[in-house]
């Protein structure tokens, strides 16, 4: 059992939990995730990224958005309560070294997994531009933490309630147009955002790392539910990832697979409206 040491509500749907998990805190590296389950008999196993860790306290920090049954139940837990099953750290750690100028793009809840990567990149001596985006001001998370790490912080909101009005791809494009362009881009957020970040950097040949959050059961390579098409190959997000070359990921296939069970719940599946909207905006 893993006790919740601290709970904080970051925005309407987003919560932060500090959970006692000393072994995971000790072993984890940026880019890795955990799988948790609240009930051993009938609960589902969901992957969540590790936003931070404290080896002295023996805690890891989880940041999640309430989207389904398990996250709703998780959000209802309080300090002192415990999480029945927590396993990790899973996935390959982020490849961190001194690249030079690194642009880190985080969208919505994707800012949480981006945080330890920014920490790592900073420590390795990179110059960091962080772009954070959300639908509105209320949904922006970890602004202070990122401000403390970034050499330059660009905030974007869809409705213009804070920072620049518009999508994260706009400042990303401007950075790519500079000479020299960034040495590396890291983009984490909704799949559609990662897809368009990759499309933005592609013409400039800026290597772009994305971190994928797919359907998973075991998280150790056993089930293959997390598989994605990367280039001509099938890769497992849990053991080959979660980070891949964004220019090679088949995001359309990934988004369809993410909806495997949702489309079944609805009578007739429909193409993603957001996808259409963003495509229109990019024209």
């Amino acid at each position, binding site marked *: 059992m893993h006790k919740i040491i601290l709970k904080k509500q970051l925005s309407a749907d987003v919560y932060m939990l500090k959970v006692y998990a000393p072994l995971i805190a000790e072993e984890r590296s940026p880019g890795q995730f955990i799988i948790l389950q609240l009930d051993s008999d009938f609960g589902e196993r969901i992957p969540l990224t590790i936003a931070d860790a404290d080896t002295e306290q023996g805690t890891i920090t989880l940041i999640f958005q309430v989207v389904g049954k398990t996250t709703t139940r998780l959000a209802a837990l309080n300090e002192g309560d415990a999480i029945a*099953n927590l396993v990790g750290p899973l996935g390959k750690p982020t490849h961190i070294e001194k690249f030079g100028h690194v642009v880190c793009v985080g969208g919505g809840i994707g800012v949480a997994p981006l945080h330890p990567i920014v920490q790592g990149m900073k420590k390795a001596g990179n110059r960091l531009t962080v772009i954070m985006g959300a639908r509105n001001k209320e949904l922006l998370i970890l602004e202070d933490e990122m401000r403390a790490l970034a050499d330059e912080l660009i905030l974007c909101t869809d409705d213009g309630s804070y920072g620049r009005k518009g999508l994260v791809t706009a400042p990303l494009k401007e950075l790519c147009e500079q000479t020299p362009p960034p040495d590396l881009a890291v983009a984490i957020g909704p799949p559609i955002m990662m897809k368009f970040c990759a499309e933005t950097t592609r013409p400039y040949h800026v290597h772009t790392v994305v971190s994928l959050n797919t359907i998973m059961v075991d998280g150790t*390579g*056993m089930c293959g539910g997390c598989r994605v098409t990367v280039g001509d190959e099938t890769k497992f997000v849990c053991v080959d990832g979660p980070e891949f070359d964004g220019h090679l990921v088949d995001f359309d296939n990934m988004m369809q697979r993410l909806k495997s069970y949702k489309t079944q719940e609805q009578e007739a599946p429909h193409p993603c409206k957001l996808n259409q909207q963003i495509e229109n905006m990019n024209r």
Partner: protein
Amino acid sequence: MSAHDTPQQIQHDAAEGLEQILHRKEPLKPKERMAIPMQKMPTQDPQIRRDNMQEVAMGYFPEQAKLESMRCLQCKTAPCVKGCPVGIDIPGFLAAAAEGDFQRSIGIIKQSSLLPQVCGRVCPQETQCQEHCTVGKSLKDVNQAVSIGRVERYVADWEREHGVQAPSVKAPTGKRVAVVGSGPASITVAADVRREGHEVTMFEAFHKPGGVLLYGIPEFRLPKAIVQKEVESLQAMGVEIKTNFVIGRTRKLLDLMKKDGYDAIFIGTGAGLPKFMNIEGENLVGVFSANEYLTRSNLMRAYDRERADTPIFKSKKVAVLGGGNVAMDSARTAVRLGADEVHLVYRRTEVEMPARVEEVAHAKEEGVIFHILENAKRIQGNEYGLVTGMECVRYELGEPDASGRRRPVEIPNSEFMIEVDTVIVAIGNESNPLIRQTTPGLDVNKWGNITVNDDGKTSLPGVFAGGDIVLGAATVILAMGEGRRAAASINQMLSTN
């Protein structure tokens, strides 16, 4: 499809048959033994079991267990024993069962096997002990051999119902052994090593121990209560079980020795990395590895749609690719989850199918449609990425290949489409990379399986391995046999230093 024999009828026939024999004064002659009809396994009616998860094979009645055991000729050479990977004294336990001394019978089995309730249910007996049985040979039909596995299951179940005695454990030695994984190989090692008085910790990646017995084999073939009992008996012996613990991630393998002070390690992580066909459309929505499909249903209990949070795909027409036990399990699970049609596609013929004969028969009884000498070539999807069909191609058998089986050869221009919304790929597993990627110096072969010597020792001192991570995908009994050997080797090492 033959009419279903009701359990009542089967019991009635067995009771009559036994009555006649018990009235005799003189012992049975071999010819008379061979004349005893082979005892059928009582099963749930196929029409009823299609809609439930309960065990299909209900187990012998006591009369049947005795009668079937009397069919054994007690051959001096015991060819059956040579077919058993762990060398159970088969004539011995059958003789005891024939006398009705089930306690002695199970005692004999347990000298060599640790999981008779499991093996009695899932061993491919027709290619092991029963393949060599003189009765089957004389009757010119391996399926008429003495049903060794069914009697094994009977006496093992009898023991469970009458209370299993926890094996005694020797005085503490102060030595500590880490067992990685909690499937059949690991359970065997944990028990055999703990018996010698060493402390044992078992590490399981999932939230429940049991490995493939839990996530892979469905309830209708191996009730989870049996697996639970095996695990509880380990705990009663003092084995500590740590779930949610991935060796290679939560802790590096060698840190178990360096940081945690274990004196020896056994790796029994199984063969968990599903193989795919590498054909077009395999990442469409509705294509699953058998591992995923079965894990959702078994471990995550998705078949219980009311209570389980884990979803499972709702299918109308399912194609299962493969001809092994896992393929049968997947097809039969799909039937139970409500699919209208379940097709099993296998590129060789039924003779070459690696599945147990009983599973093939049960699958057919449950309405699974068999397509032999066919294989998938391409999976077709619609604009939403959902599977809509599968292109198959016909095969014929050519010359025998390295495995001695006739090689299936594609018939040119024989492609055709079948309409399906779900494809389950059950063509085996590769070795899981987690431990080898994070353990420098651990030797593996070209398939990624850990290489061991005859004592189960790996290239690293104090580190042993066994089961599917060494063998590639194999059987429960082979995993158990490997575990036995490695445990003996671990005990030997710990007693000498």
